[in-house]
């Protein structure tokens, strides 16, 4: 618990809590090394090279970004790889002012779902099916989100410099508006 007092009263320190009979502390030692698998490994290698790769279902034509080895709708292995430009439009976005524990963040964070332009794929009848990425949005203000001005806005990835990329979704720093 923070020693910093911002409210009146007597604050409990961590060791005070631990000394209470009936409280037993356990800090889990649980570590994993997740196998990304065939499809997502290809995706991560692409990110390291500054490319966004998707994969197409040969039956229904859906393009999966992030890629999958299978089409969850057709239950069939996916086929051809597709390179996307990275440009797309904001499908939805939100600005968050608090952490999980509802403490106010110093700087609000904006996250968005970006509908990517995928060659040869227009989404099916359902407007919620598209090649897309969930990521941070930068270069826009809180008001742009609150007023809905970001919806439909053309955006592109802001890549980290090549020497800083590690083959992770964080190789893209955020999505930012495309300047016309």
């Amino acid at each position, binding site marked *: 618990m923070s020693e910093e007092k911002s409210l009146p009263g007597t604050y409990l320190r961590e060791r005070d809590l631990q000394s209470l009979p009936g409280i037993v502390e356990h800090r*889990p*030692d*649980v*570590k994993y*090394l*997740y*196998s990304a698998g065939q499809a997502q490994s290809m995706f991560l290698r692409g990110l390291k090279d500054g490319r966004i790769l998707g994969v197409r279902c040969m039956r229904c034509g859906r393009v999966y970004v992030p890629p999958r080895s299978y089409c969850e*709708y057709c*239950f069939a292995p996916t086929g051809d790889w597709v390179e996307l430009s990275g440009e797309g439009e904001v499908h939805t976005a939100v600005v968050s002012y608090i952490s999980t524990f509802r403490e106010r963040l110093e700087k609000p964070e904006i996250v968005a779902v970006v509908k990517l332009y995928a060659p040869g794929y227009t989404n099916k009848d359902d407007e919620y099916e598209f090649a897309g990425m969930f990521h941070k949005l930068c270069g826009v203000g809180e008001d742009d989100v609150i007023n809905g001005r970001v919806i439909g806005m053309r955006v592109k990835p802001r890549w980290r410099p090549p020497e800083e990329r590690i083959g992770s979704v964080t190789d893209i720093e955020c999505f930012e508006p495309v300047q016309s």
Partner: protein
Amino acid sequence: MTRAAIVSAGWYGFKPEVGDLSFREMMFEAALRAYAKVGVDPRKDVDAFISCQEDYWEGIAITDEFAPEPVGGVLRPTLTVTGDLIQCLGQAVMLVRTGYFDLVSIEAHAKPSDILTLKGVMDMALDPIYLRPLSPPNPHFLAGIMASSFLARTGLGREALALVVSKNKNAGLDNPRASHASPVTVGDVISADTVVDPLTRYDIAPFSDAAIVMLVGGEEAARKVTDTPVWIEGIGWATESGTGSLAYHSWDSMPSMKMAVEMAKGMAGLSGRPQSFASFAEVEDRYSFMELLALEEAGVADPIEGFRMLEAGDFDPNGFFPVNPSGGSLAAGVSFEVTGGFRVLEAYERLLALGGDLEPGLERALVVSWRGPPTRTSMSVILGV
């Protein structure tokens, strides 16, 4: 009420490490094989999907949400069970017997190779107030206590356990899923260093990455998709006081195993020793002593008699009553919640392969499994053709 049958099964992995596929890709590969064998399209033909998994094995909280996609269950009735694939099988049997579900897909997968701190993960299954602060040095200590108690009660010696290891490790040499099979001798086992007294590393089954998907159908649906249904004549499961009360357990026996077998026998309408109604058995053996204990709890033989039968070759793959002709977990490894399902898969495939060669009245297999340490949960299945 309709009978339930296993109509198809698919698997993937059973290797110490499947590094090139994610757990979801392993699930998909197993599912693809299960469905393709009987021409079933899961998007149209399967009425419900059940996944057996446990968050800490996955390293993902609420891992239920990862279940539907790889098995064809998106936007379809899906449920998850925190338990072994046999517990999923029990749920599938119940769904089918309601009459509302014709075909049900069940799945379990395991990727032990993704876990860096297995002790830390297994510690999370221990009582946080009493046991975790003691920090037992490894996850096998419970099995060591059980093995010591079992040997003390029965008067059996190390050689009895070594004989189980040698039988199973050798039996697995013919099994493509038995990655840990090897021509181990009794001498090899006895002369190996003790890992957890009285067990050597040979007595403890290693881990394997694996996925299994099975299709379970009611009688009409089963006959529609296959000419070779394998009937789930009986199934049972039970949990003792659980891992929250380890100190109160009976260490030299496994009452939940006996209860599970009795439940399965009751459902199947069978009585007497399993060798009187089944032609072989796949039983718990992730620790060598567990095979003799499982045979005792299942009513096959008391430990002394079981050891004599073992010595006489009665439990060999070509013996009077083969026990773990697949090689069991000692040869194929432990794959978390897949493990009991592995025994069912082995029994299913062997029944199909033996087919008409089986003696009338013995066209059955008995499966007995444990959920592994630190649980006190056991399961049993009686399959018939």
